């Protein structure tokens, strides 16, 4: 977690000669204008990026973190900190991999060398889910609770933005928006509603855990 934060900070404090201004915008849902938190917003451009190493561990049958932003070429460890084994895999075109049931830490980290969205799952815990956003740009950020995000942009206008959120109708790829400064500094996107938590499956699991 700390590493990730560090990586994000590093990426944000990336020295950029061409940066002339910061782009700041607010994301809302198109149906209720509620601020969208946790959306990943980045520019559609290719920068020089420095790969990093990160990890997504499994604890309490969940992936941590749920969303991981990576520069292209980064490597990710998937340590298992649960008392059950996990079978982590992805079928995403950006990176398709498969780590058969294991406990502890897999011997080899997974290399993400293609930009795109990679969705992670566990073959024996269907509800476990995590996303890795692999980008080629340094201008990337996540909206805060008020849906706001600030990105460094060059003077060239208009800019093309890529926006991704787990609850996009098609969350296998970001949506693309063009945006110029003159317009209102807010964007609205379509999101599917939050899946209901506490379904029967979860109840059953909780009961299992309580045993």
């Amino acid at each position, binding site marked *: 977690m700390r590493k990730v934060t560090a990586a994000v900070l590093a990426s944000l404090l990336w020295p950029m000669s061409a940066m002339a201004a910061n782009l700041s915008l607010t994301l809302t849902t198109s149906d209720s204008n509620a601020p969208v938190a946790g959306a990943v917003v980045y520019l559609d451009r290719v920068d020089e990026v420095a790969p990093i190493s990160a990890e997504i561990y499994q604890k309490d049958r969940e992936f941590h973190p749920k969303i991981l932003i990576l520069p292209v070429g980064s490597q990710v460890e998937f340590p298992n900190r649960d008392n059950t084994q996990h*079978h982590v*895999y*992805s*079928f*995403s*075109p*950006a990176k*398709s991999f*498969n780590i058969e049931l294991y406990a502890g830490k897999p011997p080899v980290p997974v290399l993400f060398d293609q930009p795109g*969205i*990679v*969705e*992670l*799952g566990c*073959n024996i815990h*269907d509800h476990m*889910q995590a996303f890795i956003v692999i980008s080629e740009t340094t201008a990337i950020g996540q909206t805060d609770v008020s849906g706001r995000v600030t990105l460094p942009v060059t003077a060239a206008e208009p800019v093309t933005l890529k926006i991704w959120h787990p609850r996009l*109708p*098609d969350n*296998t790829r970001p949506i693309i928006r063009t945006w110029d400064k003159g317009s209102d500094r807010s964007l609205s996107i379509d999101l*599917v509603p939050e899946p209901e938590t506490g379904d029967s499956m979860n109840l059953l699991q909780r009961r299992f855990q309580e045993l």
Partner: protein
Amino acid sequence: MRLQTYMGFRGRLITVMISLVVVVSLIMAALFMAYLFEDEKNRANEQLTIGERMTRELLDRRTDLILSRLRVVVQDFGFRSAVASGDHGTIKSALENHSRRAQTDFSLLIDSTGKILASTTNHRPLEVVDALSNSRASRDITQTFAYIGGQGYEVLQVPVEGPGLRARLIAGFALDQSLARLIARLSGTEVVFRARSDSSADYQIVAATGDRDIDMERELTQTKDEPRMLLNRQHYFSRAITLDNKGSGDIQAVLMISRQATLESYYTRVKMIAILVGGILVLAIALALIIARTLGKPVLQLADYARAVGEGQNPTPPYIRTGGELKQLRNALRDMLVRLREREAQIRYAATHDDVTGLGNRNALMQSAQAMFEDGEACTLLGIQLNDLADINDTLGLEFGDAVLVGVGQRLRNGLPDARMIARTGGGEFLALVPSSSPEQVDALARHLLQIVQTPQQINGSPFSVRASMVTMELPGDASNTNELRRRLNLTFEQAEDHPEPVTRYRPGQDESHLRELQLTADLHTAIIDHGLHMNYQPKLNTRTGELVQVEALVRWIHPELGFVSPEEFIFLAEQSGQIHDLTAHILERVAEDARAWAEQGVNAGVAINLSAMDLTWPELTDHLTRAFANWHQGMERITLEVTESALMKDPEEAMATLNRLKALGMTLSVDDFGTGYSSLSQLRKLPVQELKIDKSFVLNLDTEPQDQLIVKSTIDMAHGLGLKVVAEGIENLAAWELLQQWRCDLAQGFYLSRPVAANQLVETAQTLASRRQDLTEQLLEDHS
């Protein structure tokens, strides 16, 4: 109305009862049937509703089952790996393998952009995708029913989602025979799955249970706007259940309940009802017949009874078992009969009895006589006529008269103990029928009876006697039937009035002459009108010159049946029947006509006409004379009217007045039949007559009877002394003629001179007489010479 009279009570009763039974039965049967139908329909509907719920539930369950299978398939790691591998061959084989696991009938794999990754079917995928077009998001599980490639399917779409895997599995499960059978088994209906490609196309049957005929196939495959009830309802109750979620009805499950069994049971019930109704009908007819018999028989008996009463028999009232109205009717009829008899007896008594004396009346006597005639018995009829009953009634009052009648009746009863019948047949006329006996005994009985009747009787305390005349007739000798009896009895009573004897016996033959008189009286009228009478004329000669001076008109009647009828007879009858004036008027006209005819032929004779006594009291006589002889060609004195002496003496004053009127007309008046009447010479002196006609009884034997000669001679002398001319009639020979010439009789008439001749022979007769003048006047010439 006619029908009613035609059918009679029994028929109507049966008709009414049968109609009642039929109507009630039909209504009940109809209600029952309607109820059965309704009930059947309701039950079928209920069953269909249950079937519908069952079908839906079953399909839902099946869907859940299929879905759970599919979920397992799409979450299978191997399958997902295969899909994610992107290798077409791998994907296809995995799809086929896992489809088999899930027992789909076909399946498709579509990626997130809608591109088909693999398919196990030849169906155009678009069709399938179209069927799912209403699925909102690719990540939802959607389910629909679709008609694809001639087959009905339940189509499910399940997302295939792994980390980074976005695809859809579309799987189809056929609506097949086994499913239909399952539904059919559970719902107890027959099941047909049918589908169509769009709402304008016909349905196709995709699966079905049970047998179907061609009609049903057609019915099932036609597009109908009736979504729930279909098919010919005579055979099936049905319900169509739309399966696809669009509700277009493109794919349906049709539940059908055959009515075969229901109808069979229904027909069985109909048969039972029919048998029941038939039985009731037979029963009703039997009942109606029994009632009609028990009710009709007494009615008919009563009708016969009433008819017998009407015919005047005395039937015993019929025995009637049932009480109530019929008995009352019987009693009423019986009482009616009793009263009828009483009244009839009263009427018969009144009809056959005289209410004053209590004796029988004319009817009763005639019936009694009729009965006697029919039985061929003989008996004697005694008749009594009280001579002065009218006077008694007028002077002493009707009550007194009645008392006399009662008294006489009582005496007759006492006097004729063995009479068959005693009756009062008219005012003062009593008749009795007594057993016949010898004429002497009858006479004695009659005299005795008359004496009894005429014996003074005490009336109101004073003695009073009546005078009566008796008649007797012997039956059947004197009359053989009631008509004759009545006629001859009247005749005899009439004769009794002029009969000196107290008892008058009917004389046979009287009635025949009476009948002849009746006939002549009737026919005389016709004869007068139709010129059935004809005239004869007898010349009268001047005794001195022998020339024809006058003819006497004599009427003659040859009756077509009875032959010659003497003038005395029919003139008497004409006087009796009041036709004498018509006859006289007729004769006057005839004579005037004939005289004109002779005058034209050169015979110049006067006429003499006889007048009846009644003509003298006839006011119109002079008018008729004047009218008849209006064109008379000679002096009025040449018309002589002859009136008999007796006629003049009947009513001398009236006769005198008439004669004076006739004399005023200038006619000659003559006294006919002089010497036979009882005319007093003093009256003769007063009469305005110019001529006497000596009766022929004095002239017929004049040549041999010295007495007659004396009478004739002195009569001529007396008449001449009174200034009257004399006519003698009945001259039969020359001697008489010569004597009359000698005695200076003025005119002579007789067979010696000429018989009466018809009008057309008179001229000839006149010539003959003219040729005889020489002979007839010889003696005078000799005297003078």
